[in-house]
């Protein structure tokens, strides 16, 4: 399979480059990204260092387009990987390559590709370089669209785990969508019914078979999508099929109880309204035994066959991300917890120019509230132990032509045992983000933040100063200081230079141990101190 695809790819790229010299319309786009860190000793933070004190992650991607045809590849090199990245990322390899043909109605893909069913609770393969995730399926996909009424796609393949497709896992799936509103010519609204089927196959060992695990499991989902005059509603119901978990308390001498077989399911409801400068979204989600792994024998962050992000405020300031919410889809390691239930309310409002609160230049406000609990028991919709709660209020105001101010208040309550106990850490955080433009292209930005709490490491404060010369140069210095307990300064300084599509950034500093999150999914990053060089370009 691999060899056939590779030779096809090579043949096609040679052929197309010959054609391209005859001035047809084919073109190539691509990108390169390199992220390297030189690690140094730092006894204050007990910073970790890899062997050789150096790590570098590199990605080269290129795609070729000719009419309805496209092909592409991605090379990755970890020499070695930066610390904190999944251990299965090592060495250099041609990790992804594909060919695709598509016209208005048909899409055919062979090789590696990314896809998802619905919101991704049942199935999602994707790439996120911040997390070291690339779960692209190696296989084939066919999609067909009938007018604007129906869509169907079928796929088959082995998800990528580490540097290559998983050896023992294969998935097959079908996803379909039917637009009732287009079928019935209801022009003022959207109403669609959608559904998916997913078959996951993984060879399982003899002890797992004795416990009742099956190599082949079926999952499915049903979805509803509605929109009318700014009001939207989405509902998703997922049965993820049987999942296999380690039994934390096996009875010695008895066969067939090394694993627990659990039936997984999830429900998601999302209501939204937008219009007249007001945007509101309310979502509720329940997950039970919903963790879906590529391989049952791997514990890396990039071993996920579905997507279960934290549905809470997503923060962009370091001090607001000290203890981010980690989704609890169900676990038997350490303690038994069957899942979580909770929801989020998010409101944006724009006070227009010339109104009482808007003033001369308008004002933007954001409110966010979210709360999550463990499930009382299996199959239950009743919440039990608080896992997470946040209340956020953000205000953004262009005070004068030169001065823009953003203020954020955040209250976070975080269960540090992830539901084992009831204990929580409560923090109150304020952030001021101040941008001052001296000339249209010369500006400074300052971030001042304070976190207060009676728990964990007590109070923190942070400051950042950024000097910008648009459009190319940006310099920054920052410090985050734990003055409540450890008295450690986490300082950083650096600059970035951008010329068109090329960006070079160099920084040096001290980084605390903590979660690195991207799109609501997190990985644990050990403490490190060092210099970081990032180069990215696209062509």
């Amino acid at each position: 399979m691999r060899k056939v695809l590779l030779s096809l790819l090579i043949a096609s790229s040679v052929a197309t480059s010959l054609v391209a010299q005859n001035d047809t319309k084919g073109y190539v786009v691509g990108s390169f990204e390199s992220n390297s860190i030189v690690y140094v000793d730092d006894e204050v933070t007990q910073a970790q260092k890899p062997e050789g004190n150096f790590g570098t992650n590199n990605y080269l991607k290129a795609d070729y387009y000719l009419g309805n045809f496209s092909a592409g590849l991605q090379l990755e090199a970890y020499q070695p990987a930066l610390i904190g990245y999944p251990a299965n990322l090592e060495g250099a390899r041609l990790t992804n390559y594909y060919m695709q043909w598509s016209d208005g109605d048909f899409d055919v893909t062979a090789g590696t590709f990314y896809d998802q069913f619905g919101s991704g609770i049942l199935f999602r393969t994707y790439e996120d370089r911040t997390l070291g995730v690339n779960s692209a399926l190696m296989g084939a996909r066919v999609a067909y669209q009938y007018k604007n009424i129906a869509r169907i796609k079928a796929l088959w393949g082995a998800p990528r785990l580490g540097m290559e497709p998983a050896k023992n896992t294969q998935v097959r799936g079908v996803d379909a969508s039917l637009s009732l509103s287009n079928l019935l010519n209801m022009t003022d609204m959207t109403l669609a019914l959608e559904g998916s089927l997913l078959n996951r196959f993984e060879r399982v060992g003899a002890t797992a078979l004795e416990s009742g695990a099956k190599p082949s499991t079926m999952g499915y989902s049903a979805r509803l999508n509605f929109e009318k005059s700014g009001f939207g509603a989405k509902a998703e119901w997922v049965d993820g099929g049987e999942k296999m978990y380690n039994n934390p308390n096996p009875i010695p001498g008895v066969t067939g109880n090394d694993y627990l077989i659990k039936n997984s399911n999830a429900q998601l409801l999302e209501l939204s309204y937008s219009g007249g400068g007001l945007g509101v979204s309310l979502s509720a989600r329940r997950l039970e035994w919903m963790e879906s792994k590529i391989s049952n024998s791997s514990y890396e962050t990039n071993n996920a066959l579905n997507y279960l992000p934290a549905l809470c405020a997503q923060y962009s300031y370091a001090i607001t991300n000290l203890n981010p919410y980690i989704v609890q889809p169900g676990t038997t390691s350490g303690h038994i917890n069957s899942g979580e239930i909770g929801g989020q309310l998010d409101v944006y409002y724009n006070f227009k120019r010339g109104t009482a609160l808007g003033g001369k230049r308008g004002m933007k406000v954001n409110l966010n509230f979210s709360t999550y609990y463990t499930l009382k028991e299996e199959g239950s919709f009743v919440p039990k132990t608080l896992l997470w709660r946040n209340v956020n209020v953000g205000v953004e105001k262009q005070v004068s032509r030169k001065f823009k101010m953003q203020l954020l208040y955040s209250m976070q309550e975080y269960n540090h045992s992830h539901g084992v106990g009831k204990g929580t850490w409560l923090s109150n955080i304020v952030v001021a983000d101040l941008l001052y433009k001296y000339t249209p292209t010369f500006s400074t930005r300052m971030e001042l933040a304070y976190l207060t709490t009676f728990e964990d490491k007590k109070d923190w404060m942070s400051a950042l100063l950024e000097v910008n010369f648009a459009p190319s140069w940006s310099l920054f210095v920052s410090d985050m200081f734990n003055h409540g307990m450890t008295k450690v300064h986490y300082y950083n300084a650096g600059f970035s230079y951008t010329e068109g599509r090329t960006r070079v950034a160099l920084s040096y500093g001290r980084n605390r141990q903590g979660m690195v999150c991207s799109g609501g999914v997190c990985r644990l990053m050990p403490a490190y101190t060092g210099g970081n060089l990032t180069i990215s370009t696209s062509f």
Partner: protein
Amino acid sequence: MKKILFAAFALLISSVAMAQIPSVKVEDGKGKVINTAELVDGETPMIISFWAVTCKPCIRELDAINDLYPDWIEEANFRVVAVSTDDARFTAQARSLAEGHGWSDYTLVYDKNGDFKRAMNVQFTPQVYVVDKNGKIVYSHTGYTPGGEYELFEIIKSLQ
């Protein structure tokens, strides 16, 4: 094997022509599938900006353009396409953010599966493109520094 591959890759690179807006599927605010090639109308150039709910500089850049938009549109004919790279989970939030930030003059599209992002080789957001009326990419820029929007407008004016 690897050598052959690299050779093939080099050949591929050598056949570079002017990049164009690729034809991939994204969704509009109502969840309707639209083809990105349809964004090209043969009449007006566009600023295409890839953003995300979690990307502060992206929102800053789109706000800055939005504040200047009423003045700019008097001088030059152009459109702004804001491509949300948020996945399905954050689409509702992205829609409310766009509403609450008053981006009513923008064409808002949602690239939930990241197909448009990959086809345009966007690695970091914000990533902004200036595209002429025929869909040819004439300029692009990674990252945002306050004031960077003036450069975009200069290019838009040169395309009139």
